């Protein structure tokens, strides 16, 4: 993996949603709930709109992990969102396995518009997991 600096926090790309999870991430900042600054966000209208190729692109270009902050059942575009986002995750994980990459580098959780604390908890534990993996890989 690029860099090789063990004490570097892993880079995580978050796909947030404009109406639901992005406001929660904004509020995490407002509440000064800290998380690693190597977490970057790209907002999309709905988590069912994320193309697997974008996730693959991020992971192949050097992001250590991708986190989908999904709309869950709060999606303003309808009930099918949860299933559809799940399907995107499933398909991408297949692709990761085929390429011999760790499918756990992709993570998804439903983040409601006030779920700031759960968001921070999720990205922190995800960063911790990715950090350990990074360390193992660096040693190998």
């Amino acid at each position, binding site marked *: 993996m690029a860099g090789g600096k063990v004490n570097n926090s892993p880079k995580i790309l978050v796909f947030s949603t404009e109406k639901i999870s992005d406001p929660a991430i*904004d509020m995490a900042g407002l509440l000064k709930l800290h998380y690693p600054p190597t977490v970057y966000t790209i907002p999309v209208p709905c988590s069912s709109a994320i193309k697997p190729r974008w996730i693959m692109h991020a992971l192949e270009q050097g992001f250590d992990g991708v986190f989908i902050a999904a709309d869950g059942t709060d999606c303003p575009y309808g009930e099918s969102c949860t299933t559809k986002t799940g399907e995107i995750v499933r398909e991408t994980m297949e692709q990761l396995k085929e390429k011999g990459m760790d499918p756990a580098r992709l993570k998804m959780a439903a983040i409601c518009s006030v779920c700031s604390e759960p968001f921070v908890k999720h990205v922190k534990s995800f960063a911790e997991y990715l950090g350990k993996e990074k360390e193992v890989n660096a040693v190998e």
Partner: protein
Amino acid sequence: MKKKIGVYICHCGGNISDYVDVEKVRQAVENEGGVFLSKTTMFACADSNQKDMVSDIKEKQLDGVVVASCSPKLHLLTFRGVAERAGLNKYNYVHANIREQVSWAHSDNKTGATEKAIHIVKAAIAKVRNAESLEPVKVQSTKAVAVVGAGVAGMRAAIELAEAGAEVFLIEREFFVGGRVSQWDDLCITDETGKELITRLYDRVMQHKHVTLFTGAEIVENKGSVGNFEIKVKVTPRHFKLQCSGGELQKAIDVCPVEVPDEFNFNITKRKAIYHNYPSEYPQLPAIDMKTCTRCGKCEAVCNAVDFSQKTEYLNIKVGSILLATGFDPYEPPKGEFGYGEIDNVITLPQFKRVIHYNDKRLIWQGKEVKNIAYIYCVGSRQLNGDNKYCSRYCCTSTIHTAITAKNKYKGIHNFHFNRGIRTYGKAEVRYDESSRLGDVYLQSFEYDPPVVEARDGQTFVKIKDVLTANKELEVAADLVVLVTGMVPRKDNSIAGLLKVPKGRDKFFNEIHMKLRPVETVIDGVTIAGASQGPKNIMESMNSALSAATKSFSLIDSGELALEPTVAVVNKEACEWCGKCDEACPYSAFEKVEKDGKMIAKVIPSVCKGCGMCLPVCPSNALELIGLSDHDVESMIDVLIEKDTV
């Protein structure tokens, strides 16, 4: 590709610059491809800076603008406006959030925060480099509104819309108007009856020449979108001629041999197949329920007004907006919940209200006089295990009001309220006070330890561990147990499927934003009012009805609508129609069309909501969302992953 991008990095007083080295950010991005100008500013949103930006854009002929400041939820529209005022198409503006998602979130790590800000601003530059000018999708709109449901909310909205100058089609599925409110007698706090409210609203509806009321009617088809909905309305005949004399009518009802449970009285009484719910009901013309009528012909023989030749009609109507005010159903407890359906003196609150209506001097249920009444609160609301997690809002007030009514109307009534905390909020609090002074007894438990109803020795007992008396076990021998049932969505809510209106976790219709956009749905042009959106009392329903009417009217008033152009687009070369996008689209925004000898998908821009659900399902990657193309996303990713510069 843009060559003259202006980048503005905001201090936000110190909100950003206390943690992010904004000058360092500026230096790091000034040599990015396409950047022509880069500045830091104390307050980007301040009037003076906005003016500076306008003159920069004009004088230096900027072709793209980035502001790195607070969340786009606060100021995206502000800076789009700046671009527009300077003559630059507003879609050439991209916003970078370096406050909520950088300086505040990482106030513990200044180096990290600065580094992140640099990456985010670079990503915004990468995106604006590729941005294109877009024009809003313009559609003509019809100055008419369909209001679905003629209860209090629907009628109030219809009157408001008609007075504002819209043509209104008020569509009621039942043969009579008034909805749930017509089923109530005295209302809290005014002591007017529900019927009186309905009469006043109905009179105004009928006086207004721009309101057309359909009863026995429902929308069965819907095409088009905001500004131009084409709906098909099915109107079921009531099989009565307009002129009908009271005497003959009563004879017709008397001879009808069919008896069915009367839903108007929540099935505690029976009615005939020919019916009206109460004598002065509107429209004042009875109806024949053809689902149960046996066509025996006895009514025709005694009443000239009966007319079986009337046929079901279908009307095609064009409207610019649809306002849904379809109301609620009372929660129906399953058999055995607190003895309901098993013990014969366990009834629901709506049933109890009708029992009071029919009993004048003495309160009689199943032939026995009632003295001790036990009310069990929160049945079907605030459920520990069921799906209904919400509070139904009206029930505490309604129960206490009804208990007082019973006490004042009949002698020797004792009320026992088995509650989980009383919520007679706002002006209704005086009723709680009144009931306490009248000697009503309040017993309380938590949701995990509800009261128990049991029948023994020919009597019904309600037992509770009362938290107000240190968990003492108390028991009441009740002549009548009233289950205080909450509100649930209409059993038949097929209209939501037809219009593709989303439902929330509670299965009621869902607004876009609970606080900021409370009566709009993601379906442009479809607004929601009253208890169709969630439990509401009459006052709250009126508030939402008036705001939904205003919102619907604002959409159709000008005759032309401008819609967001950020919709899905199809790559005509790559598309080989497979239909997967059509399946994934919640709004039916795709058409199958022929292009250069093959079938391909086409997006209808006025229907597409820009959600992007179609993007990942396309096997040939022929779909992109404007403003979120593969190029947009992947170039942002490439920039975000670049090595640190600090």
